[in-house]
C-alpha cells in the first residue's frame, strides 16, 4: 500500500521541479565528464556507478579521482574530500530551518541529497514558506530529479568512455572540470588569493612526505583568503570613517 502524499507536498514538489528544471541542464556535462573520468582512471562500470551512488558529489568525486589513481594514502583522500565538501556545512546551516517539523530519518535523507544547484535555486523560497509539507516537497522534488539526472548521465558517460581511445587523455577532463568550478570563485578578490596561495603552496611543497603539501596548500589558501577579507573589510571601515 502506498502512503498518500499530502497535497501541499505534491504542489511544492511540482513548483520546485519547475524552478530547478532549466538549471539542471548544467548537470549534464558534469555527469558525463565524471562518468568518463572514472573509467579513465581504471574503474569498471560497476565500481564507477558504485562510487556515483555512494558519494553522489561531482566535485568530491572529480577531486579525489587523481589521488585514487596515483595511489595516495586513504587519509589524504578523505581529508581532501572533506575540504572540498566543507561548503556543505555552511549550506546545511543556512537551510536547516526549512526542515522544522521533519523527522530524523527524513533529515538524513534530505541531507544526503543536498547539492549546490538545489541549494542555490531553492533555499530562499523554501525558507519563506510556512507549510512544512510544501517546504519538504519544494526541496525533495528538485533534489530527487537532480539525483536521477546525475545517475543517468553519469552512466551514459561511463558507457561512452569505453568507445574512446586511451591516448586521448580523457582524465584531463577532470582537471578542466575543476577549473570550471574554480573560475567563478576567482572573480572575488579574497577567493582568488585563497586559490593562488593554495595552488602555489601545493606546488612548492609537493616534496613533503605523504603528500602533505596538498593539505598545507589548502590550509595556507584558507588563511590567505581569510586574512585578505579582514584587510578588505578593515580598509573599507577606515575609508568610511574618513
Amino acid at each position, binding site marked *: 500500500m502506498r502512503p498518500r502524499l499530502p497535497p501541499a507536498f505534491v504542489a511544492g514538489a511540482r513548483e520546485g521541479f519547475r524552478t530547478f528544471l532549466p538549471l539542471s*541542464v*548544467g548537470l*549534464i*556535462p558534469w555527469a558525463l565528464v565524471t562518468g568518463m573520468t572514472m573509467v579513465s582512471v581504471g*574503474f569498471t562500470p560497476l*565500481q564507477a556507478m*558504485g*562510487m556515483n551512488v*555512494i*558519494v553522489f558529489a561531482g*566535485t*568530491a568525486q572529480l577531486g579525489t579521482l*587523481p589521488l*585514487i589513481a596515483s595511489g595516495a594514502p*586513504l587519509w589524504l*583522500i*578523505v581529508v*581532501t*574530500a*572533506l*575540504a*572540498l565538501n*566543507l*561548503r*556543505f*556545512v*555552511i549550506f*546545511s*546551516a543556512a*537551510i536547516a530551518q526549512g526542515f522544522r517539523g521533519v523527522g530524523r530519518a527524513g*533529515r*538524513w535523507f534530505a*541531507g*544526503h541529497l*543536498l547539492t549546490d544547484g538545489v541549494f542555490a535555486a531553492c533555499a530562499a523560497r523554501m525558507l519563506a514558506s510556512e507549510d512544512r509539507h510544501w517546504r519538504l516537497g519544494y526541496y525533495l522534488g528538485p533534489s530527487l530529479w537532480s539525483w536521477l539526472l546525475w545517475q543517468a548521465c553519469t552512466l551514459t558517460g561511463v558507457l561512452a568512455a569505453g568507445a574512446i581511445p586511451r591516448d586521448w587523455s580523457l582524465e*584531463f*577532463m577532470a*582537471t*578542466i572540470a*575543476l*577549473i*570550471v568550478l*574554480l573560475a567563478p*570563485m576567482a572573480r572575488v578578490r579574497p*577567493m*582568488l588569493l*585563497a*586559490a593562488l596561495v*593554495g*595552488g*602555489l603552496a*601545493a*606546488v612548492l611543497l609537493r616534496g613533503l612526505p605523504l603528500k602533505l*603539501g*596538498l593539505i598545507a596548500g*589548502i590550509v595556507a*589558501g*584558507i588563511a590567505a*583568503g*581569510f586574512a585578505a577579507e579582514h584587510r578588505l573589510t578593515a580598509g573599507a571601515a577606515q575609508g568610511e570613517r574618513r
Partner: protein
Amino acid sequence: MSDELFLWLTFILIGLATTLPRASFIVLGSRVALPAALQRALRYAPAAALAAIVFPDILIVAGEVQPLNPRLAAAGAALAAALLARNPWLPFLAGMGVLLGLRHLLGA
C-alpha cells in the same frame, strides 16, 4: 586487503566525508551554531582545495615545475572559455582541443 575491497572502502569513506557535512546542520537543527569567524574562513576551503589539486597537475611535468607545457596551455584555454562563455561544453572542447592539438604538433 584486496585492491577491490580497498577501493570500495575508499568510496564509503568519501561518501561519509560528503554526507556528514551535507547533513550536519539539517540533522542537528538549530541546537548547534557554527562560530561566525569559522563559517567565514570555511568559505575559502573549496577554492583553496580545488587550486591545490589543479596547480600541481598543470605546472609540474616529470617532477619539475615546467611553465611551458601543453597541459598548462590547455588549462588556460579552458579557463578563458569558462570565464568568457556561458556554454557549459566549451571549456571541455577548448581544453581538450588545445591539449590534443599541441601534443600532435609537438609529436609527443
